[in-house]
Structure formats: C-alpha cells, structure tokens
C-alpha cells in the first residue's frame, strides 16, 4: 500500500519537475512547482513525519509559491520566447543528462541502507510534540538563529521593494 503511494507521489514530483522546466508560460511552471511541493509533502508523510508534512504544505505550497505567483504577476504577461537557443543545445543537454545519471548511479553504488532504528517509538515519532521537544531543547541555538535569519529576510524585503530614490 505505502509503496504504491510512494511511487504515485514520486511520479507526481518528477512530472511536476519536468513541467517546471518545459512550460513556456511562467504561471504554469509555478503551478507545476506547487505539484512538486505537494508530492514532496506526501513523501514526508510516508516517512511518518506528520508535522513536516503540514509544514511543507503551509510554508512551501501556501506561502513561498504565492510569492512566486505575485512575482509572475509583477512581470506582466511575458512569455518565454524560444529564439536565443544555443547551437547544439539538444545534444549538449543530452550529454549533461547522461553525465548526471552517471553520477547518480555512481553515488547509489556506495549507499549502504540502514535498518530502521528499532528503539524509536513510532507512535510518537514525527508528531508535533516530539518535533517541539527536539526543537526547543536539543536544537535550541539553531532555532534562535532562525529568528535572526528571518530578521535579515525582513530587512532585505523592505530594501528590495522600495522605490528608486525613496530614502525613508
């Protein structure tokens, strides 16, 4: 059962990924990326990471992708035009794809699969409570540093979006 859902979600993610790069209209690429995000959240759920599953949908599908949509609307109805292609683009990309798959294959050769940790209590693994306990005790410093990161992002957002010569 789980393996069937895994393959469906994985196929959705790959199809979405192909959609992102192959659609000519930016808005369709963004929606393909939303499909990828939702498929990823299903994969997280299959790994019993329940909180990460909803966080993925809320933050990535619900917030980051909305920003992308707004950026597309900001750009106007621009459509990507296929005029400035490189020479030999098709054959070059085939070469790179082959190299990438070669690398992936080589990497997968060295992987040793771990047996599932028997000591983990699966009834609480991935719940909001267990994530919180880790986040607020063991990983306290990364958590506090996140707030600094968000502060930097806020300042950056303000400076990026202000008008030319507007020195408020």
């Amino acid at each position: 059962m789980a393996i069937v859902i895994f393959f469906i979600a994985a196929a959705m993610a790959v199809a979405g990924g192909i959609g992102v790069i192959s659609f000519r209209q930016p808005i369709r690429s963004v929606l393909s990326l939303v499909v990828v995000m939702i498929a990823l959240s299903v994969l997280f759920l299959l790994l019993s990471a329940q909180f990460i599953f909803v966080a993925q949908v809320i933050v990535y599908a619900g917030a980051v992708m909305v920003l992308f949509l707004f950026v597309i609307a900001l750009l106007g109805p621009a459509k990507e035009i296929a005029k400035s292609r490189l020479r030999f683009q098709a054959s070059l990309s085939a070469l790179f794809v082959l190299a990438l798959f070669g690398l992936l294959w080589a990497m997968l050769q060295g992987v040793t699969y771990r047996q599932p940790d028997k000591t983990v209590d699966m009834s609480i693994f991935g719940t909001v409570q267990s994530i919180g306990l880790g986040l607020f005790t063991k990983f306290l410093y990364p958590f506090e540093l996140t707030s600094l990161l968000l502060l930097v992002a806020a300042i950056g957002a303000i400076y990026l979006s202000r008008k030319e010569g507007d020195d408020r």
Partner: protein
Amino acid sequence: MSGIYNDPIGHWVVVVVAIAILLFVVLTATAYTVWFERVALGHIQRRPGPNRVGPWGLMQLAADGVKLAFKESFVPAKTERTLFVVAPCIAVAAAFLAWAVIPIGLWYNVQYWIADINVGVLLVFALSSLNVYAIVIGGWASNNKYSLLGGLRSAAQLISYEMALGLALVPTFMIVGSLRLRDIVEYTVTWGPYHGPIPLILLTPIGFVIYLIAAVAETNRAPFDLPEAEQELIGGFLTEYSGLKFVMYYLAEYVNMITVSALAALLFFGGWYLWFVPPVLAFLLKIVLFLFLYIWLRGTFPRLRYDMLMRLGWKVLLPLAIVNVIVTGTILVASQG
C-alpha cells in the same frame, strides 16, 4: 461501535459510508445556508426574501441549482483554458477536505471524525492556504482586468489574515496542549465544585475576537468581501465564470463558511457540550448561531476600503495576536508554578 473498528473490512466500509453521508450533509447544509442567508438578509432589510418555491421558499435553492446546472458554462475566448477549469476545482476540493479533521459529536460519548491525526487543525490551515490558488488562478486565467485585480487583491487579503488566524489559536493550543480538535473540545477543568468541559472563550477571549475577524476575512465575506466588490470590480475573479463552474466557487465559499463556524464552535464554545442538550443538536445550534452572525455582519456593515483592510490585518490584528500569545503564555506558566 468498537466491534466494527476491529473488523478489517467492515472498518473501511464504515469509513466510506461515513464520508458519503458527511459530503451529503455538508452539501445540503450549504444549500440551506444560502436559503437562510437570503431569508435573514430579507428580514434585516424589511422584505420577505424567497418564499414562493415550496413551503417558506425552502425549495428555492433546488430550483436555483437546477437552473444553474442547465445554464451554459462556457470558457471565454483567449483564456488559459486548463487553468480556467482547474481553478474552481481547487476551491471545492480544499473546502471539502477540511472536514476530514472536524469531529462531530453525534450522541453522548459518541463522536465521529474521518481522520484522527496528530496535526489536526494544522491540516485545515494547510488546505485553506491552498484556497489562494483557486482565486489567483481563476483571476489570472480569465483574461479580464477586473478578474485579475480581484484575484490578486483577494490573495493578498487571504495571506494577510491567515497569520492572524493562525496566531489567534496558539493560546488555545497552549492551554490544551494538543492540536487535535477532539482533545480541545474534551478539555476539562476543575474549578472548585465544578468539574467538566468549559467553553475556551472564557480563557482566551481576545483570541476569539481575532479569530472571528480573521475568519470573516478568510472566507471573503462582507465587510471584507473586496475580491468581489461588485461596485468597483464587477464580480472580481468570478466575473467570467458561469453555470456550474460559478456554482463551484459559490459552493466552496459557503462550505468554507460552515467550516469556519464549526471550528469556532469547537475551539471556543465547547463543541457539542451544552448542558443537557443532545450533542448533535448543540453542535448544530452553535454552527447556526455563527452563520447567523456572518449574515448579520453582511446586513449591517459597509465594505472596508482596501488600505483599511490591510492596515487592520497587519497593524492591528497581527501585533495583537502576538501580544495575546505572550500574555496568555506568561499567565499559563506563572499559574502553573
């Protein structure tokens, strides 16, 4: 009940039948919410409202539904055809899926819910965040300036109030210590001689006020119905929709209204607990009261201007929600010792 749950096949039959019943009830409830709204608005404005089709006009919605289903539902020229069709689907799917985690008290000590999951109410947030796509894509795909503007306005409004909505519920989660809606309803206190469930509004009144305002904005209802402000935007993102596709957007809006009312009843008013009243009636009564509040608001308040709307969301509700979290947290920890 538990016998059925231990039977491997019987359990899934129960689940499927329950889902079918739930969908039927929600769909019917949606139709009668529209009827209720039209009658209530009528009386607020001193006119009778629909009263011709069937007794008290109760069949009005069936008539409207049949009429709309057999209207032409065309896709205008030069639209993004696929996106134009997909957008209302997202709206309806997201609206119905929220009911997966909402528990329904059927009788004393008998409750039913489709999925009892640890992340509970966060799933409702996740689904409501997908609503943005239905509106932006519908507006973008319509090839209409008013649709696009309505869609984008609406998206900015939804995301601005989503944070306030989420943060308004944090005090409730702190008090209960769980995100499951059932745990929140079942939360019991011992105050002197009293021992039993309480409406949590007594403990987080400010959280409730923020939730109420943000929820009205999240469902695009008056006085926050700017996305479909008919005097300035024709119909907003709905302008180019007709027939059943138009119905789908409307269906989603009213299902969302009922969802938000049910959540308010569960989170702040003790869900199905009301003295000796049978649980299912108590729950229904609370939902109907909220729906009436929605309609009352629509009949009473003028629409906000867009800058006022954004100011309210960002400069009032968001800071207030954060302060509410800090104050409630401090009181909670201090009282715990």
